[in-house]
């Protein structure tokens, strides 16, 4: 077994944290809270390490290793933006209103523009859906998307008062909820088994 100490520590702490959720004994809950607060600090340090790694990647790009590629000039922009934001954050602290205003003044328009591009991309993808998936599932997906768009717009609200059709609409409206619950149960089971593999020591994403 590779990294037996790390594996034993991960399994032991994982079991304690899990028990803290299910068995509400005060000392277990205290240990769980302590472990989670350590994890938050470690995650923040990891974020900082990852950001400095990103800086190193862009420095390497600028120095031509690997060989120059199209768009490498943007790396200079990234590094300059990072240096200014990092220094301003250190001097003013991230809670400073002017610092937050300056960051948001850049971030908000850029992200809004990306969302606008995303809207066009999604519209184009939906137009190409039947070309990409020319099967009964694709047709059903497209038809149900159109139907529920019409339903959500309120165009069929006049039919709700009718005796049989109104009930049928009510049933149809619940179908996406049932499908979503089915998918979420599957995802929940998958997540549970992923956690159990780590508790068993069969999956070790931490051992290097």
């Amino acid at each position, binding site marked *: 077994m590779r990294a037996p100490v790390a594996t034993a520590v991960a399994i032991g702490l994982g079991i304690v944290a899990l028990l803290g959720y299910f*068995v509400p004994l005060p000392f277990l809950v205290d240990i769980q809270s302590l472990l989670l607060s350590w994890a938050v600090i470690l*995650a923040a340090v*990891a974020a900082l390490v990852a950001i400095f790694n*990103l800086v190193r990647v862009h420095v390497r790009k600028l120095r031509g290793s690997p060989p120059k590629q199209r768009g490498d000039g943007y790396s200079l922009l990234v590094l300059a933006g990072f240096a200014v934001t990092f220094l301003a954050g250190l001097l003013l602290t991230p809670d400073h209103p002017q610092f937050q205003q300056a960051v948001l003044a850049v971030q908000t328009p850029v992200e809004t523009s990306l969302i606008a591009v995303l809207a066009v991309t999604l519209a184009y*993808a939906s137009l190409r859906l039947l070309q990409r998936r020319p099967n009964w599932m694709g047709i059903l997906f497209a038809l149900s998307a159109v139907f529920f768009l019409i339903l959500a717009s309120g165009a069929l609200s006049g039919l709700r008062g009718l005796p049989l059709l109104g009930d049928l609409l009510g049933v149809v409206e619940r179908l996406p909820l049932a499908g979503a619950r089915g998918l979420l149960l599957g995802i929940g089971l*998958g997540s549970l*088994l992923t956690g159990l593999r780590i508790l068993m020591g069969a999956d070790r994403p931490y*051992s290097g």
Partner: protein
Amino acid sequence: MALSNIFGIGLVGLGLALLFFFALPGRQREARAWRPIPAIRRLRRAIGLAVEDGKRLHISLGKANLLTPDNGSALTALSTLERIARMSVVSDRPPVVTSGDGALAVLSQDTLQAAYRTSHALDQYDPDRGRLSGPTALSYVAGSLPVIRDEQVSTNILIGNFGPEVALMTEASEKARAFTLAASDSLAAQAVLYAAAEETLIGEELFAAPAYLQAGAAHQASLRVQDVLRWVLVALLILGALLKMAGVDLL
């Protein structure tokens, strides 16, 4: 102790016991053939072609925070990454990994290192191949686009926690004429990916990816446990509905 807590402990205990049972060597030999997933078959072929052609694989692990409940998809993505890195270790161009969370980026470097060490090719390991491309959902996508576009990538594997913004990555991949397999644990992203991605994994298929890439006995055993637990949940749902109809409310 609340009934929901007892049920939770029971489900975890049953899952653990079944996992040990199905992972036993004798039970492994009895394992039946899995339902074919065409997307994974195409992925294996795309990985093989990328290695042969000297092109790069790009694996994007999503933006899940490891301290939140959606970390299951990120951990599965890391298992998938390790398997893919080992499959492509002979390639001239090592895979590049992007993620949208700092801890996940560090773990991706660790996973790549482990894969190269296991394959006795540690000299090929480059920590800069596991990158944080952005700390927010949109900056992560924006930071991943140059990787898809400029790094001679022929196959993009997007697996983990993504939102609908993942469509920008699939679009960039299509423009670069690269193969894309995408899977997310978010329902909104799954709907988007069904329309926008070349191949997609729906629902719990995301968690089956490592087993289908032959990541090991524990992954194959966990697929069988998932099947058993699914039937247990179906039975409990029906029982709960019947009890509710009879006027008994346990929770």
